[in-house]
């Protein structure tokens, strides 16, 4: 059954060397937990961005926590390119697995369904097939004769995300952000931070249950108020655009990134 723990205890459940799946900015990114991971000196993570990332991936890359990165893009959105990602690609700081959004979802879906691979439409002709030897083009073994791309299952060791609320049993409200459920179904273990724990049973009514990830999939939950900051959390709070722009500017240089990181970590400690 789901345990409710402190943020540091939650972060301690992620081990260096593991594969870690994270959602796209705005969908429920566990930034407070990311600070706790960095504080704890996490390293050699195999990061899987579902299907892209921004500030979270760039922070982890800049801090040297990433050994491998699978993603369809890393970008700060309106704030521009992700500077540590760009620098890291150039210096070969991590093993890079470029992907395309639905292929990452397809890999997770294969894990969800306990099959070794998943077919996916499109992609043929893309150079991604050249740089992803783990992907193949096959003739469909059944149905209409057709070439189709197949990608291997993606089974993250850990999925980590942030959501508005969970109940005491560990059910997590994800609304229509079902990509968070896709993460949890595929991952061996799922860790969630939330704005708050509620006393009511989120599975009680058909309406509230529809937007819930059941506790069955959730190993541990920690409360982290404004835990996605400076990113947005659905309609709970908007992104702190000024903060992200400040990051984008500072992280252009290695020194600037270090300075930002230090402030970011101490900010998180003040909040906690």
């Amino acid at each position, binding site marked *: 059954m789901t345990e409710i723990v402190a943020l540091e205890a939650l972060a301690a459940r992620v081990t260096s060397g593991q594969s870690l799946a994270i959602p796209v900015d705005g969908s429920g990114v566990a930034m407070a937990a990311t600070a706790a991971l960095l504080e704890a000196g996490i390293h050699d993570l195999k990061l899987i961005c579902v299907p*892209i990332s921004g500030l979270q991936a760039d922070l982890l890359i800049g801090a040297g926590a990433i050994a491998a990165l699978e993603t369809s893009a890393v970008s700060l959105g309106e704030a521009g390119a992700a500077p540590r990602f760009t620098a890291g690609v*150039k210096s070969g700081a991590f093993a890079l697995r470029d992907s395309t959004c639905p292929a990452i979802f397809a890999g997770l879906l294969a894990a969800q369904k306990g099959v070794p691979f998943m077919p996916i439409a*499109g992609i043929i002709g893309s150079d991604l097939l050249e740089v992803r030897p783990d992907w193949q083009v096959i003739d469909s073994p059944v149905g209409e004769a057709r070439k189709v791309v197949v990608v291997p299952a993606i089974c993250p060791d850990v999925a980590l995300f942030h959501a508005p609320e969970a109940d005491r049993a560990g059910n997590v409200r994800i609304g*229509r952000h079902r990509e968070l459920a896709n993460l949890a179904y595929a991952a061996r273990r799922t860790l969630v931070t939330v704005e708050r724990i509620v006393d009511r049973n989120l599975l009680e009514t058909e309406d509230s249950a529809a937007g819930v990830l059941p506790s069955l999939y959730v190993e541990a939950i920690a409360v982290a108020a404004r835990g996605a900051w400076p990113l947005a959390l659905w309609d709970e709070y908007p992104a702190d655009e000024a903060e992200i722009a400040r990051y984008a500017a500072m992280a252009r240089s290695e020194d600037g990134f270090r300075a930002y990181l230090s402030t970011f970590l101490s900010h998180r400690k003040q909040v906690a």
Partner: protein
Amino acid sequence: MSAERERREILIAAIADLLDGISHVAVGASSPIPAAGAMLLRARNQRDGKPPVRISILGSQAHNFFTNGGIELFDCAAQGRVDAFFLGGGQIDSQGNINLVGTGDYPKTDVRWPGSFGSAYLYHLIPRVILFREEHTPRVLVPKVDFVSARAITPEVRRRGGPYALLTNMALFDFDRDAGGFALRSVHPPFTPADIRENTGFIYEEPAVVRQTPRPDPATLALLRGTILDELAETYPAFARAMKQAA
């Protein structure tokens, strides 16, 4: 600033025209001009009693009627339920291939862009993909992209999707899927066909007489500067503000 407004208004109107006849268009998260074009088509159809237009804006709460998470746009495209979409590219080549990854040798590319996003997939599945890239220079419009994020034409597989047109700050090109290349349709004022030749790094068909991209007519401008800016403000407040200030 007024020239900047005119430039944007021409692009928005051109997009509305390119979308004519579709019933569902999806727009990426940070794409105010494509979104405005889609909204203009929707408003025009509504005004003229034409079929309604559905607009999905990724990442927007208000223009989101997906309820199955991040995969739904992609599934929806595979089902043939998305008629039009916009893609950009750090490089776009003469064959319509796009590069969202970087220049030079992969993986340690000289210039690295964010990545391919959903392009490799959506280019196959959405019938009317509009390549929209404001910068019109030889470094963007290249003979051959350094990395094919998404290929425009793949004779080895049947596909419904692919490039339909290329719209830049300077011109509008049609894409001919049979010929496998671009043809200049019109040049935006104040540019000339010679400007286009000079700033395009790839070969394209050029008609004997090159039209000018039309400026939006007064009725369109009224819609654009009224309803559309109000609708846009919901999702792209900064863009809508800039457009209003330019007035």
